[in-house]
Each structure stands twice: as C-alpha cells, then as structure tokens.
C-alpha cells in the first residue's frame, strides 16, 4: 500500500507516493533526487539531514514522509534561486570560512535559516542553541557562528528581504 502525497517542495507543487513507514530523507534523496540533504547518522543525533517543514527544522531521517502531505518543504536546493547566485546566508557561510568538508553544511544552513526567519537578530546564545543539534567535525563551529551573525547583519541591512 502506498500513500499519495501532495506538497510544496522548494516552492514547487510536488506529488509522490510513499510507503507508510518511509522516511522523509529517502523520499527527498532517493525518490526525488535531491541529494543535498545528507544522512550523517540516521538516528536524529547529527542534524546533517535537517530540512524545513512549514518553516520548522526537522531531522528528515526521523520524520515520516507521509506527514509532509499538504506541507511546505524546503531543502538546501531551495535556498538559492536559479540564476540569482547564493542566498545571503549561503554566501555568509562561503565567505566566512564556515565550510570545510561541507557534509554538515546543508543541515547547518537550514537550521540557521529557521532561526533567522524566526528571529533576524539572535543573540550568540540563541545561535548556539539553534545549532546545538547539528554536529560538525571539521570547523570547531567558530566560523559557523560567525557566518550566522554576518548573515543576520546583512539581512537586517537589507531589511524586509526574506532569509533565503
């Protein structure tokens, strides 16, 4: 038995059929070919698989695929509009040296986006709390926190603009 799904994926109406027990990450990566979402643990411990469901960051390795029916899902592929270059947040990660091996980056960037969408001017402690579920083995997080702060400044400077 398969469940039909109808949802918005990175702004596009999308339909799919999944098994009742399917994980969101498999729907995204295997069925829909969006491999930007990474699986680091499959157990909800690393945050590499973070995507946004209705603006909320979720671990797509635990999130049941059937539950996205009727929702809006944003993955890392949905941040930069084609032909428009990187989003302000992505650019801040690139320019801030916040990316080394990059395996944690999609999840990290989406967790940061969820935070900045909610609060464009977070305190450092808030940034740390928002990213505490996202493991990075390469960077020691210093430049990641710096990039989120830089993005927050830029976004506020160009106020009104949505955090892409």
């Amino acid at each position, binding site marked *: 038995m398969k469940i039909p799904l109808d949802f918005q994926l990175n702004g596009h109406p999308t339909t799919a059929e999944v098994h009742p027990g399917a994980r969101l990450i498999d729907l995204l990566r295997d069925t829909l070919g969006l491999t*930007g979402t990474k699986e680091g643990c499959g*157990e909800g411990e690393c945050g590499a698989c973070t995507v946004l469901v209705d603006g909320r960051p979720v671990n797509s390795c635990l999130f049941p695929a059937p539950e996205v029916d009727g929702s809006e899902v944003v993955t890392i592929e949905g941040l930069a509009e084609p032909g428009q270059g990187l989003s302000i947040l992505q650019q801040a990660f690139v320019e801030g040296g916040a990316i080394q*091996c990059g395996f944690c980056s999609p999840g990290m960037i989406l967790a940061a986006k969820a935070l900045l969408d909610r609060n464009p001017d977070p305190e450092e402690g808030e940034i740390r709390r928002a990213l505490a579920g996202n*493991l990075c083995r390469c960077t020691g997080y*210093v430049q990641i926190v710096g990039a989120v702060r830089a993005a927050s400044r830029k976004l506020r400077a160009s106020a009104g603009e949505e955090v892409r």
Partner: protein
Amino acid sequence: MSSLRHIGRDLPRPDAPDKATGKALYICDLSLPGMLHGKIKFSEHASARIVHIDTSKAERLPGVRAVLTGENVPEVRFGFMRDNLALKKGRVRQFRDEIAAVAATDPDIAAEAVELIEVEYEPLPAVFCPRQALEEDAPLVHERDASGRPRKSNRLALEVGHATGDLAAARAASRHVVEGEFTTPLIQQSCMGTAGCIARFDARDNLTLWAKTQIPFLAQRDFRGALAAMGLAGRECRVIVPTLGGAFGTGLDTHAYEYIAILLAHRTGRPVKILYDRREEFACLSPRQSSVVHVEQGCDENGKLTFRDVRVLQDNGAYTSWGATYPSVMLLPATSLYQVPVVSFRADIVYTNNTYCQAMRGYGNPELTWAIESNLDELAEVAGIDALDLRRINVNRPGEVTPMGLKVTSCGLEQCLETVGRKLRWSERRGKQRGKRRGVGLASLVHVGGGGRIYRSDGSGVILRFDDYGNVHVSTGAVEMGQGLHAALVVGVAEAVGVRPEQVFINQTDTATCPWDVGTHASRGAYMALSAVMIAAKKAREKIFRFAAGAFAGEVGRNIEKRRKKNPDYRPPDFDLPASLEPEHFDLADGEVFLTAAPDDPALRVGLDRLLRAMHFCRGGDMLTVEAFYDPPTELPDWQKGRGNMSATYAYGAQGAAVEVDTDTGEVTLLGVVAVHDVGRVLNRQTLEGQIYGALAQGIGYALYEEILTERGRILNPGFTDYKIPTVAEMAFPIEVEFVETNDEQGPFGAKGVGEPGLVPTAPAIANAIYDAIGVRIRDLPITPEKILAALATRAERKPR
C-alpha cells in the same frame, strides 16, 4: 617575494559554493545505472572458529545477486602487514570481522539478506588487554604471519626505538626526576560523511573505484594486488576520489569493504556500492589506537632537562593498518620537543582481539605529547620552577639538530610560548586562583611541517595544463578532504604562475589523470603540492617567456593597431621595444605578459590567452602543459634506531587553556583557549584558522569527552547518542588563535604544514589547567567528571582535613 598578490589574502574556498548549495557529490550521493548495493555480514564473536556458514536463505531472497564468503572467493590479502583478508576464512579475530557479503538490487534487500545468513561459531580463547597479550601463555591472535611462518608472540614485528646518551647516568645525575603513566582511549574519527565506495568493472575487466581515500595512489597499488589475486593481473585500476565528508586519517589505508565491493562487482558484472551507516562506521571502521605511555623526565637545579625516558604500549587490535606505525611519529615529541640531551624511547605494538585501529589526525603525537607535557608540569612543580619558565629554559631553537637527527630550520616555539603566556595572563593567574577553582595551563608541540617520510617516496606530482583561454587546470594526486587544499592550490598557482585566482581550476583527484602523490597525511598536502606547483610554475613561465621573446612585438603591434582603429588620435606609448627581446625581459601577472621595464602601459601588456593561442594555432604549434614532481630533501628514518630527518621542516606551537572546575560535580568549564602556532607563513588566513579551530575542537573532545567503550572487544557506544563529540554548545568559550610567521626557507612561500598541530597539545594544556585549578592530576583521557570526583575523593582520603 616582496609583492605577493594572493598569498595571505582571504579568498573564499573554491569548493564552498557547491557545498553550501547541496551540489557537492559525496560517495553517498553517487550512483551508476544498474548499480547494486552491497552489505557485509560481520562477526558476532571476538575470537572464534567459523564452523559453518549457511547462505542458502539469503541466496533465495528475490533481488539478491550474489552472496560471497571466504570460501567462495579468491583469497584477497591486505593490510600494512598483509595480515588481513577481505573475507575471513575459518576464523574470526575481532567482532567486526567480515565473514560474508551480499549484493542486491536495493539496500533494504541487501540488509535483509545479511540477516538471513546463518553462521555457526566455536568460540576460541581471546585476549583484550595489551599487557596480558604480551604474557607467555596469552592466546595468539595470529598463529601465523602473512607468509605462513608460525608466530610466537602477539608483539608485532615493528620495532621502533631510540637511545641517545647514557640514561642511567643522566637519571642518577638529575636533581629532580618525575615519572608517570598516561593513557589514551580509542577514538572515533567521526567523519560526518560515512565510509563507502563504488566498484565497477568494464567489459575488459578494468576496474574503476570511487573511494573515500587519502591515498589514491597507494590504494591503487593495493587494489592492483587484489586484482592479481583475482586472476586479473595487469588490468587497470582507476581510483577516483569524490568529495570527501571528512577523513582525519580514515583514508590512509584500504579497507575490507572496498575489496568486498570489488569482489561483488566482479562476481555480478554490475557496479556495486557499499556505504556504511553510522553504526557500522563506529563498530566496523578502525578507530584511533588506545595507548599506555610511561614517561620519566629529569632536570638539573636550573631546570635544564637532563633526560627523557618513554615507553609506549599500543593496542593494535586484531589486524594491522598504517596506524601501527604511530611510534614513528611519537619519536618526534619523544626526542625533539624541547632540548633534551639524553633520550630513550621504546614502543611495543601488540595484537589483541579488540577492533583493529588506524590513523587519526596527529598520528601518535597527541598520545605522546599528552604524556610528556603533563609530566613536565609535574616536574616543574617538584623542581619548584614555574611551568612556563621550565619550558622557556628548554625551548627549541632554529638551527639545532635534535637527538633524532631532525634538522630544525625555523622554529618559533619561544615566541609561541611567550604569546600564550601573555594571552593567558600567566603570571597574574597561574597558581593564584585555586580559591575560585580556576586554573591556567599550557603545552607545546612539535610536528612534521614539511612532509613526513614514512614511505620510500614522500613525493607529490602536479600537472598544470593551460587552455586556449588563459586558464590553468591543475591535476594533483593530493586530496581535498575538507581541509582547504584547493583553496591553498588556487592562491598558490595564481601567485606562482601569475594568473588571477579565477583562472585556476582544480581537477578531481583521479589516478587516471593526476600524477602520483604518496597521500594526504602528515600535514603534507598543501606543503608538497605547492612545492611541486612552484617547480611547475617556473617551467611554465620559462616556456611562456621564451615564446614571448619571438611573439610579443607582433602582439603589441596588434594592440596598438586596434587602439588606433578605435581612436584615430591614439598615441602609442613612448617606449621603444628592444630590438631583440629576451625571455628575461618579461614578467607575468594577473594573466598578462608584460615587460619588466614597462609594466603599466596597457598597450604593452599581452593577455596570456592570446600568447597561448598564438603558440597553439600556428605551423608546428605547441600547447603548454608542464609537470613537476617534488620529493623533499629528507631521510627515511631508521626506525629501530629512531634516527633520520624525516621532514623538510618542523611545525611548532603552544596552546593554553583557562578552566574552572566544579568540585561538587567534577564538571570542567573551559573559560578560554589560546592557540599560537608557528606556521611558517600564512597562505590563506581564514582557511588556516579553520584548520586550527577544527583541530582544537577535536583536541577538546579528546581531552574531555570522547571514548569508545568496549567490553571483551565489543563496542558498546556505536553512535553519537553515547559517543559525544563537541557541539556548538560546548564550544561556547573564547578561542584566540595567533600565528607566528617564521618564513621557513624550505617551505613554499615560506609555509609549513598545519593540518594536525592544532589538536596535539590541547589535552595536556587542559589537564595542566585543571591541576592548577584544583590540584588533582588526571592521567587517563578523557578527563570526565567521574574521574575528577574520584581523584578528589582519593586525595581527601589521603590527607584528611
């Protein structure tokens, strides 16, 4: 090198945009048409005879294309001492031994099939403690060596030692002597991208392997050996390295899963992918060795070190990887950290039925520096000398030759120590905050900074291919694994050749198109690749300038004509081209060739692209491709004697920590960390800082949190739930990083290797700070709250108040 244009600038990394947008392709993202998924059946015993394997149910499962066991495949031997088999036969020696493997059309089917394989074992005696493994009646982990000779002991035939001076006399003559035993645990490298590969054979049985490796060329050699064992000697083995989700030493060896993928792909005639999940990564991929280090050091009444005696016991686990050669790098701190006239070092590496180990960042150096630097603080206390002063008194200096025979070219250790002391406010705070249970501590390091020769070649090749558009395409055997090699290559090539960074493109590492490199380890990647780039760039410039000598005047003529056509009033530059131009008249910068005598007039500058096209599209045309191979002027040490100048230069550094300890809970809070490193020269500050920050976080995990727990060889915490690496929440304290630039005479642009040093002295700096805060010394990593509470309790018992 006065007018550097790109070196030292913070150019964003060329690989970052793809990684920020989800476009970078890691091994988990790759798939090929018709690809099957492989899954491995691992042993359920640490030591047992395999009585019977029943694969019939697995074979009958729809979707299964092959089930392999040690009994139905050619014997594929591998490992540093060739003591391992891709699929084990008759006997298992560790929990994770690979005893069968399945290829199926879908990963779930493969997993289900593995569950259906039934194995009957007969348990055999096992040994898990390296000390017990050395006892005479200990069960032998390997009864025979790779060539079938009977073995008598579990000690590996890998002798690493060192002796300089008369140890007994030096000990007797010392005013103060302190000894101690220090231990370190098994550590998971914890790459966020787990291990995996894809193997594919073409119709002529040539193999392509997409591999998560740091050593594409040594791996190629290993895989060719496997092909030979499969009756495919002489077939091509092409290794392609996809984007790596971290490596940290896990890519220094070839792995059973890779050979199994090769065997499955050959058996099925289809591409086969094996991808570890996180549990497999923890339980079935080799971690960093655990070690027991006994150290004794002495000094005279002035604090001059008199001797150092180090003995290491290293638990190798059941098979041997390159990591077994950790002691080769332990020799560095043992013999060459601070000036010590008399040194003795000996390492025993022992087989046990524990999981076998492999390299991790630092390669033995953190294990030893932990012991030496902790012990040095104890010596300072006994001698009544300030711990920073003791280190200053014995500091290494440029020009010295150490007992190991290391030729210290440049050395900024003294400055590193001074800076750490200043930033920690040492004299104000050291020993003065016990009331607040706060303390400061520091530790230093020496590491290879110009390659590390542990193989007959420590070389690196590079090819620079110039296209018709003035771009330079760089092929190197060195591997980008997240550390920023490509960023360093882009600035280095731009600088050395004289083009703009956006004209430099780095090709994917692929043994079919890239020249040989021994591997990206020992902090050597950027150092070696850039050293090769310097040679290649010089060749390219010579060839460009030779061609320019004949073609430049004509191109300038065309420049002037064009300008005249556009603007009839155009006045050509007031400069007479020499009648005959020589190559030495030219320079190249920002992608334009010009005369050194007239660098500024745009009409007298010719785009490199135009010269390249002129060179290419003419009678007897030529194209510009240069290659270079750099092998540094170093020695392969004699390991038994522990002597040889294994690196072209050495990296130094010092780190400091400020901590507060809660004596009720045993909790350690880091108040701040300072890292000051002699890096030779900063090539790209942001990337360099990233290397230090990241290494520091790993050093902090090593010091305070991380440990693989085992019980009779079984790993008990195979996941991030129970194996804690630092998160952004733990890393919430000020970190100050500073660089000392000693402009090393050997290094490319003066730089030294920096990949590993950042985690080497972190743990002892923290342990020394904890001692300063509460007066208890923990000698066993990680320094957990339980250990601190236990130490406090023991102390309270010993001297009741």
